[in-house]
């Protein structure tokens, strides 16, 4: 690990000031010379691997006193960005009114990591692409823009089939982000000029020509909270992986239904493990919305979700798997007792 200056932020303004000063015009996640430290489960790992090389680490954990609250009123859930994954997963009200959120948190990582990781850090976790994580490969457009992508011709079984580009096929690894996508969450961002709010779906950028730019955050900006409209008692997260526990998704689906007399008045689907960014399957939703729950219709919706899929040599299976995950998740949501 390279040397860095450790700065403990006493409050949000000082954290933002420290981060903004040091990052200057650099890209926030990949080249920033200062990085915020919350749980550290991504940052410390990637610093040990020499993938992330901040000159300053700004410890924002002291902000937890004001940024880790969870509050639920009639139609809005507010999750402080420094709330820990395990605490939110164990919240009985969230389990009852937003089961998909509790599920995505509970099925992620390990109990130790969930105790450490903050919600804000979790949605910003970096890809698990083995070529991104291994600096002995020079050709990674995320780390070294313009150098190429080792995964295209490499071992790409775990890579994405949706939202990729010729420059990058890395998979977005997170689970919680899929619940936020499905439920139309809003992100509250605190920066130098105060607080701004964006749709969660506008937080991550598809790789396109610039896979090194992963989010729309500006230097010095911190995620302070997530706002989720609801409730969505009929919602589930289905995660399929190589082992039963403590593994990233090969394919997953966050599904929420508003079901009345077998008619889907609203249907939400977001997909994990298969896409370059948190992924909303809007084409599939459009097929389902307003229709009666029906197996043939669901097959059609699942096909639509993967109509634009671009698999590579080792991840062709993700298309068939992803469709089955959508179908099974919808069935689980439709039949769950609420």
């Amino acid at each position, binding site marked *: 690990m390279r040397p860095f*200056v450790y700065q403990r932020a006493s409050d949000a303004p000082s954290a933002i000031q420290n981060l903004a000063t040091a990052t200057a015009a650099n890209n926030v996640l990949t080249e920033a010379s200062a990085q915020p430290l919350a749980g550290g489960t991504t940052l410390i790992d990637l610093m040990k691997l020499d993938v992330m090389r901040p000159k300053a680490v700004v410890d924002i954990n002291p902000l937890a006193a004001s940024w880790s609250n969870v509050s639920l009123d009639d139609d809005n859930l507010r999750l402080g960005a420094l709330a820990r994954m395990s605490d939110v997963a164990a919240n009985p009200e969230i389990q009852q009114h937003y089961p998909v959120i509790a599920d995505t948190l509970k099925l992620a990582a390990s109990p*130790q990591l969930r105790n450490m990781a903050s919600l804000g850090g979790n949605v910003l976790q970096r890809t698990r692409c083995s070529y991104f994580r291994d600096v002995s490969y020079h050709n990674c457009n995320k780390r070294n823009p313009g150098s190429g992508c080792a995964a295209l011709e490499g071992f790409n079984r775990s890579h994405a089939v949706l939202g990729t580009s010729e420059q990058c096929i890395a998979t977005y690894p997170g689970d919680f982000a899929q619940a936020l996508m499905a439920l139309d969450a809003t992100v509250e961002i605190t920066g130098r000029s105060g607080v701004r709010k964006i749709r969660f779906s506008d937080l991550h950028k598809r790789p396109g020509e610039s896979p090194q730019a992963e989010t729309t955050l500006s230097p010095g900006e911190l995620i302070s909270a997530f706002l989720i409209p609801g409730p969505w008692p009929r919602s589930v997260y289905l995660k399929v992986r190589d082992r039963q526990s403590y593994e990233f998704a090969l394919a997953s689906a966050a599904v929420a239904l508003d079901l009345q007399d077998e008619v889907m008045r609203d249907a939400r689907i977001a997909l994990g493990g298969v896409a370059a960014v948190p992924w909303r399957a809007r084409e599939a939703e459009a097929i389902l919305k307003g229709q009666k729950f029906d197996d043939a219709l669901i097959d059609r919706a699942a096909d639509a979700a993967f109509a634009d899929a671009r698999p590579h040599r080792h991840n062709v299976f993700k298309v068939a798997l992803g469709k089955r995950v959508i179908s099974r998740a919808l069935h689980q949501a439709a039949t769950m007792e609420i």
Partner: protein
Amino acid sequence: MTNQKDFPAGPGFNRRTFIGAAAGTAVAPIVAKAAGASGGPAATSDPSLPVDVSLDINSATRSLRIDARTTLLDALREHTGLTGSKKGCDHGQCGACTVLINGRRVLSCLTLAVVAQGQRIVTIEGLAEDGELHPMQQAFVDQDAFQCGYCTPGQIMSGIACVREGHAGSDDAIREYMSGNICRCAAYPNIVAAVRQAARAMSDEQKG
């Protein structure tokens, strides 16, 4: 520096005490030199200078002057002689380094020591009381829940948290909530049995 009272009291010489003491003396000159060069207390503007860190480990306060990069795991093993917490992967994947911070199980390999200041750290060395093993330690012995033993301190710390969190109600729950601790010898069936046994003992203890 290394303090003899932090080592388990045993008759005469033992390997662990020797290694701990040797590591302590080896480290001292390096730290002293770096600190001396700064001409005063640790500064925060120069990453090459050490930082002063005060840690509450097993109810004892330890003051260290260390590189800011030092993880809690390395601080425990290399700077306080507490070698019970193990370094397996050093990337948060195996669980061998699990300790409790403020009662919660966390990975000491992904925790910077400087961040752990002001918090209650409990390691495997802090479990036994008055020479009596913690019920989870006793259960691992009773159930033969290890072969090589390398993952065992992490398994035991994680097992204690698993029970306290209320996640030891069934074998399936134990398997799910112990999944962050990998055992390369695959002693898993016995580990599940040990957590099950300890869960009963810990619950009896609370009732009693």
